[in-house]
């Protein structure tokens, strides 16, 4: 049997433990609110709660983050459908179709369809994760450090290839992140590197500080420095939501299954994430559906394909995180941070050492997607009220929460200074279009890559061919190299990229 039903049962019971269940609900609420409010992304919300997970156990922390992840990843569609404002780049295809459907008078059903498609995609994806993660982990246990290095290498390469507009910029960002990862004590030789005699740098650059600074503070500076409009919100009409009937949902079954499949598959590729899944699914659906002429004019297929793929990617992204310790997206990169904060290294051993925790996470994710229907309905119903919260006030609170979050890590003001510094760097990275996700993944995966690389070479007596002598390692390295050159081939074929591609960013 692929899954251990005994542990799944324990996981389900654990997920209903008051603390765990509360974390799922709180996470979903925070996620849906953050995802739906333009300017606050699901990733920002996960980053903001990360320091506070210090105070909790590993499982409630992860469930809180999974709640935010599942809720936030769908919620941007609400503002997209209602006001033509996608909460996140991944919600752009939904907005294209949803807002047109709104204008045609189908706003209630469009909202309901988005909620249901997200829930179905997310649930199927969580189920896939539950079924496929354990065998995936068993296979992963036979890997040596050479294979691990090859996988991390693939992760680093995928980040560069997928979802970025300039390979040069993505590489610069990635290597800056990896260079930052070398600061502090070298784990293999026990030597300090680039610490400049600073006590705070001896333990390395804390990725939580970098994440908070780059994403949250950088975003606040970007938003408020661009605006010439008067601060404050405008009052809008409130809309009701109608869930689709079974027949309406059944008529879109092929679209939903395709969206889920694409979402799940793209989600498992490190560095791809929901945005790429959403655009790919939308594009594929346009090619294969019976009414492609309706795309861009209010197509139910377009809306369903995008929404199912977005949430379908969540389970897929969790598979490499849980089984290999490789984050498949920005959000799972932060979740990896939560694991590390609790001194737990995700990977195949997680399934043998703490199977209860893993299955509680599985069960929690399944629950999340079911509860999301209720939370989504509530939030969609009352969202017009929340839209009245002035953005300026929200941004001020975000900055204060970031300061507290950075301070809470070690009760040290030096961390707060570092976080503020990275906030300014984050702003300039946005300004000069230097993508941030590669830096973050470089910072997280860089030390792992170094560790596996050096350990493998020490074991092989500095023989570099060790990476090419093992079949899987060799295949993965060549696959990485092929992926690296893919954009150049694609660029030469197309000559001019699609306008839509420019809106893709790697989340």
């Amino acid at each position, binding site marked *: 049997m692929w899954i251990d039903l005994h542990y799944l049962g324990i996981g389900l019971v654990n997920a209903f433990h008051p603390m765990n269940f509360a974390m799922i609900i709180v996470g979903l609420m925070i996620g849906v609110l953050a995802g739906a409010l333009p300017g606050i992304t699901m990733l920002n919300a996960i980053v903001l709660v990360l320091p*506070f997970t210090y*105070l909790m156990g590993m499982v409630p922390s992860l469930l809180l983050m999974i709640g935010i992840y599942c809720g936030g990843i769908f919620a941007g569609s609400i503002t997209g459908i209602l006001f033509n404002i996608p909460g996140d780049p991944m919600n752009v295809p939904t907005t294209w179709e949803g807002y047109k459907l709104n204008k045609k008078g189908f706003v209630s059903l469009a909202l309901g369809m988005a909620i249901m498609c997200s829930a179905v995609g997310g649930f199927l994806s969580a189920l896939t994760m539950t079924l496929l993660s354990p065998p995936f982990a068993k296979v992963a246990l036979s890997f040596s450090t050479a294979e691990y290095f090859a996988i991390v290498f693939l992760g680093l390469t995928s980040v560069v290839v997928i979802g970025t*507009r*300039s*390979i*040069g*910029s993505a*590489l*610069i960002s*990635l*290597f*800056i992140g*990896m*260079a930052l990862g*070398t600061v502090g004590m*070298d784990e293999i*030789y026990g*030597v*300090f*590197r680039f610490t400049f005699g600073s006590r705070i740098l001896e333990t390395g650059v804390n990725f939580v500080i970098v994440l908070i600074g780059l994403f949250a*503070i950088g975003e*606040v*500076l970007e938003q*408020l*420095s*661009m*605006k*010439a*409009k*008067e*601060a404050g919100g405008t009052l809008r009409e409130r809309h009701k939501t109608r869930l689709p009937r079974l027949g309406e949902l059944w008529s879109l079954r092929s679209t939903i299954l395709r969206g889920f499949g694409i979402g799940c598959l793209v989600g498992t590729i490190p560095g791809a994430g929901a945005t790429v899944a959403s655009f790919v699914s939308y594009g594929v659906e346009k090619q294969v559906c019976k009414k492609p002429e309706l795309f861009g004019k209010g197509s139910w297929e377009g809306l369903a394909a995008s929404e199912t793929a977005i949430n379908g990617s969540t389970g897929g992204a969790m598979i490499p995180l849980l089984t290999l310790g490789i984050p498949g997206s920005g959000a799972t990169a932060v979740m990896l941070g939560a694991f590390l904060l609790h001194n737990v290294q995700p990977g195949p051993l997680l399934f043998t050492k703490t199977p209860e925790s893993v299955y509680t996470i599985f069960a929690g994710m399944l629950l999340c997607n079911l509860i999301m229907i209720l939370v989504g309905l509530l939030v969609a119903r009352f969202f017009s009220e929340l839209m009245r919260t*002035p953005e*300026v*006030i929200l*941004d*001020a609170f975000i*900055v*204060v*929460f970031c*300061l*507290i979050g950075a*301070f*809470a890590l070690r*009760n040290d*003001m030096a961390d*707060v200074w570092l976080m*503020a510094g990275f906030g*300014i760097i984050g*702003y300039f990275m946005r*300004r000069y*279009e230097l993508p941030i996700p590669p830096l973050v993944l470089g910072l997280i995966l860089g030390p792992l890559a170094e560790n596996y*690389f*050096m350990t493998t*070479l*020490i074991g092989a*007596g*500095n023989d570099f061919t060790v990476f090419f002598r093992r079949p899987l390692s060799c295949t993965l390295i060549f696959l990485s190299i092929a992926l690296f050159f893919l954009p150049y081939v694609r660029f030469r074929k197309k000559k*001019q990229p699609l*306008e839509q591609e*420019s809106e893709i960013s790697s989340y």
Partner: protein
Amino acid sequence: MKKMRVGATASSLKGPGLIFSMALYFYFLAGRIQDVPISGQLGPAFWPKTILILLMVSCGIKAVETILEKGRKTGVSYGSSQPKDLNIVRLIAMIACIMGIVWAMEILGFLLATFLFFLVFTRIAGWRRIASLLITSSLGTVGVLYLFVKVVYLPLPKGQWFFNDLTIFLYRLLAII
């Protein structure tokens, strides 16, 4: 016209050039990493040096991309900074405000620094309603303090000298401690 294009290209190369210079500086610093050499091993400087070389190569790739892009003169430009409606004064003021609160947290303490931050930040960001500004700042500060000091027991900075006593007095007044 050609001169202008060359000028624009040179300007676009400043960023990669700056990063390249910094990478080169750190590359030389990596050479000074103290190490007891073990024969047959690569040593602690190998990895950072490799990364820094790759970073410098990436700067080269970016420079080539920029030059090709400017030469192509097509509608779509990869990696170039798009013109945006930037309010530079507001940006500088906000950066100063964020750095200011970090400094003020150490000197004035979290309570006073946050209250002042809410006031100044929202004002700079364009919030004009004075009454709501004061109410939001006060309630926001007290709410955050209750949550993190009273509920979570986080020892947020109380400030120095007179401000330390003032913060403690205000904490007692607000029944936070």
